[in-house]
């Protein structure tokens, strides 16, 4: 009987349950996906530019962070479940249900909900891992090797982790329900007490918050000066600074707004401000934590995409020419005809023993492009500049060849310069060249308009050359295309990690905030009912909800964005320009964050906005 009652009340709150359940499913799926990567050495070793050991460390660090946030997430999700249920269970107890029986019921409910969500989450996680991997490979032109979407150890770790947490949650819930007096369960609406903070202390905290943040930002900008010390220093000051900022600066701002009566006494503003004032006290720690996590997540995505950005620039700097044709065949010519060519030049050479000869007039007519490396001044990464030699640079001399000529020998070489069998180059006039015995061979250098777009076609050309003329395999294995393939493989692991960690952190932190806010919704029902009776329009109430929750989402988001903007300074060491194209990750991030905001507002409204009875 009791079981039936409990079940029927679940049906009446189906929407909230669906959200809770799908939230848990997402958490389990994310956790599985991450573990499938973190515990899969094959994947790590082959897909990261760092050695497998280093990557393992980074992934374990990520896994610990993910476990911590999942833990907090489950706490918030569980407290939402508890607030949603305590009134009903309190009612059953009033009606004479035995406490032990109720304890059992809530234990079963929490446990079954959790385990069901975990199992479904893992199945979805396996599927998603496959889909995401494939999507990444296609979208970003990455190569992922040894990617197992089903991985036993990951499956078991996830199951064990959630099992333990849900057993604790279930014990906690039944304990809490059994120990709380029935009357308190029934009237659990919180009573906000007057918060008495001395204005001076508040001002001190507010200033301290801003000062600590400034110190942390300064440390990150001056990483060259502070070296590695900048990171722990910034971490401590920014965490404390965020906390004080929420604990004092925002409260001080709210008070200021409230005091300004010509502002606050309009419409429902005073109510909204008071709700916020009350909330922020309760949320201080959470909002500070979210601003930090937000920054970590957004930072991870930005850096992930930054690596991708770097990758294309790095590839561009591998070689001044995109394709080099050492041989010809009908098939190769057909593929070359398909290329969108920007510029091409053909050079003749003759090989005699260990000597190779090039024509001075050809190089003077079509000087070669090359990359010029500046001497790097600071610690930040820099890219070389593309330049072109001048005709007068190609001078024949008896001494050691100058830079331009040496460059020509390298770029026009047909053997690897790293192996012992390299040929010695000679620059000769056209007349001398004609007098030399032997067959004249030709080498064509091509620059295409867009290397990334032409990559598939170039792959075919390279392959065709290898089959047609295996004697050039040494230089072909060192071509721009071959290097690009290798670089892509190295960077893709980093990109994947950045994106994955960033998105899963975002999903978790936004859900934490959502469940925390929704847990408070049930105690707000009466307030909104009262306002409705006083004649506040439904649209006004809805707007108030949107604003209140909007501020709770916007503040940590804003602070998090500022953290990231300064934090990217740290990545000047690893990335060419960490700020390049950051609008894209910011946009993706804000869209997803906005989606959570919208979901929270919708659910909150569903709980608190009184329904006006309409008769037909």
């Amino acid at each position, binding site marked *: 009987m009791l079981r039936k009652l409990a079940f029927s009340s679940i049906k009446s709150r189906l929407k909230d349950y669906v959200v809770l359940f799908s939230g848990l499913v997402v958490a389990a799926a994310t956790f599985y996906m991450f573990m499938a990567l973190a515990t899969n050495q094959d994947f790590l070793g082959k897909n990261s530019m760092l050695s497998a050991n280093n990557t393992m460390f980074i992934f374990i660090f990520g896994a610990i962070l993910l476990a911590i946030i999942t833990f907090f997430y489950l706490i918030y999700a569980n407290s939402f479940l508890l607030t949603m249920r305590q009134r009903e269970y309190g009612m059953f107890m009033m009606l004479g249900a035995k406490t032990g029986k109720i304890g059992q019921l809530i234990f079963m409910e929490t446990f079954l909900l959790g385990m069901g969500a975990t199992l479904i989450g893992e199945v979805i996680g396996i599927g998603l891992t496959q889909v995401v991997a494939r999507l990444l490979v296609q979208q970003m032109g990455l190569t992922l090797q040894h990617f197992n979407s089903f991985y036993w150890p990951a499956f078991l770790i996830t199951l064990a982790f959630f099992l333990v947490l849900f057993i604790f949650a279930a014990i906690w819930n039944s304990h809490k329900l059994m120990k709380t007096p029935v009357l308190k369960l029934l009237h659990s609406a919180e009573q906000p007490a*007057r918060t008495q903070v001395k204005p001076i202390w508040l001002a001190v905290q507010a200033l301290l918050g801003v000062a600590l943040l400034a110190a942390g930002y300064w440390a990150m900008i001056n990483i060259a000066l502070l070296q590695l010390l900048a990171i722990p220093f910034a971490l401590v000051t920014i965490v404390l600074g965020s906390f004080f900022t929420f604990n004092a600066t925002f409260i001080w701002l709210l008070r200021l707004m409230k005091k300004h*009566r010509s502002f606050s*006494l*309009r419409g429902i503003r*005073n109510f909204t401000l008071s709700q916020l004032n009350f909330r922020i006290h309760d949320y201080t720690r959470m909002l500070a934590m979210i601003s930090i996590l937000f920054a970590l997540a957004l930072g991870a995505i930005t850096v992930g995409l930054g690596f991708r950005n770097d990758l294309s620039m790095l590839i561009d700097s591998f070689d001044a020419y995109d394709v080099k044709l050492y041989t010809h065949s009908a098939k190769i010519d057909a593929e070359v005809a398909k290329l969108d060519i920007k510029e091409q030049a053909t050079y003749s050479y003759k090989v005699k023993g260990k000597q190779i000869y090039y024509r001075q007039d050809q190089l003077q007519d079509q000087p070669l492009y090359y990359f010029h490396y500046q001497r790097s001044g600071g610690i930040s990464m820099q890219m070389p500049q593309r330049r072109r030699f001048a005709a007068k640079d190609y001078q024949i001399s008896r001494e050691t060849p100058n830079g331009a000529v040496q460059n020509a020998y390298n770029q026009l070489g047909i053997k690897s310069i790293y192996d012992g069998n390299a040929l010695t180059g000679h620059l000769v006039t056209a007349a001398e060249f004609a007098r030399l015995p032997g067959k004249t061979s030709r080498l064509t250098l091509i620059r295409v308009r867009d290397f990334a777009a032409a990559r598939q076609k170039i792959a075919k050309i390279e392959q065709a050359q290898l089959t047609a003329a295996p004697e050039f395999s040494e230089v072909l294995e060192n071509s721009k295309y071959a290097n690009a393939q290798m670089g892509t493989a190295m960077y893709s692991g980093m990109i994947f990690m950045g994106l994955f960690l960033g998105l899963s952190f975002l999903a978790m932190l936004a859900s934490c905030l959502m469940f925390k806010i929704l847990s408070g919704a049930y105690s707000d029902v009466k307030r909104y009912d009262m306002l409705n*009776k006083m*004649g506040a329009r439904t649209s006004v109430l809805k707007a108030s909800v949107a604003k209140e929750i909007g501020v709770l989402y916007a503040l940590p988001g804003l602070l998090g964005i500022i953290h990231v903007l300064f934090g990217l300074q740290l990545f000047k060491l690893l990335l060419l320009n960490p700020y390049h194209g950051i609008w894209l990750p910011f946009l993706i991030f804000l869209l997803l964050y906005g989606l959570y905001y919208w979901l929270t507002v919708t659910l909150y409204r569903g709980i608190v906005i009184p329904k006006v009875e309409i008769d037909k």
Partner: protein
Amino acid sequence: MTNEVVTVQHLVKTYGKGNEKKFTALKDIDFTVENGEFVGIMGASGSGKTTLLNILSTLDKPTSGEVRINQQDLTQLKGNQMADFRGHEIGFIFQDFNLLENLTAAENIALPLSLQGVAPKQIQPLVMKIAKRLSIESVLDHYPTELSGGQKQRVAAARALVHQPTILFGDEPTGALDSNSARELLETMSSLNRNDQVSILLVTHDPFSASYCQRILFIKDGEIGSELRRGERDRAAFYQEILDNLGTFTE
């Protein structure tokens, strides 16, 4: 005719839509409240008092019949008009005070004016005026948790009256008060009625509260059973008559 603030004719309210089980909470109710009257509504639990009050205050819609407040036909109101109507024309006091705990007493009282878009500058004097009238000036800066039950109900009354509504509705406002606070509140209400011409409709179980009214309607099973008028008698005599009437009424 123009002197009536509330006119109810052939009011029927049936709960349960479509296939649901139907329950008629109000059957053919007729009554009027004149401007400046203090009317009580009494009846057993479940007789339909709250239902009636909800309809009068546009929180619920009648199934059929006509309800006019201040000459406005409530059945013609839609969406926002209903909320605006509640905001302008009606003041509410409830058994459980229903103050917003995160606002001070003064801010609670100011809220209806803010909602109506009264300029912030004009709000302060209006709040002070009604607070003086209800003798709560000294607690204006307190939060509801820092007030006694009686004080809370006075603040609620001040909030219900600050925008000078056409009529004040009370649903068991003394229900959660001790007898002294209850008496004080009723004295205040009756003084507001006499000296400030506030029309009041008071729903109550309690014969003592009802004895402050000028007229009492007895509602039973969704119908108005009988009516008592105080006339020129003193309160004690009226109280006795209510008691007698309740005796016969409940039989």
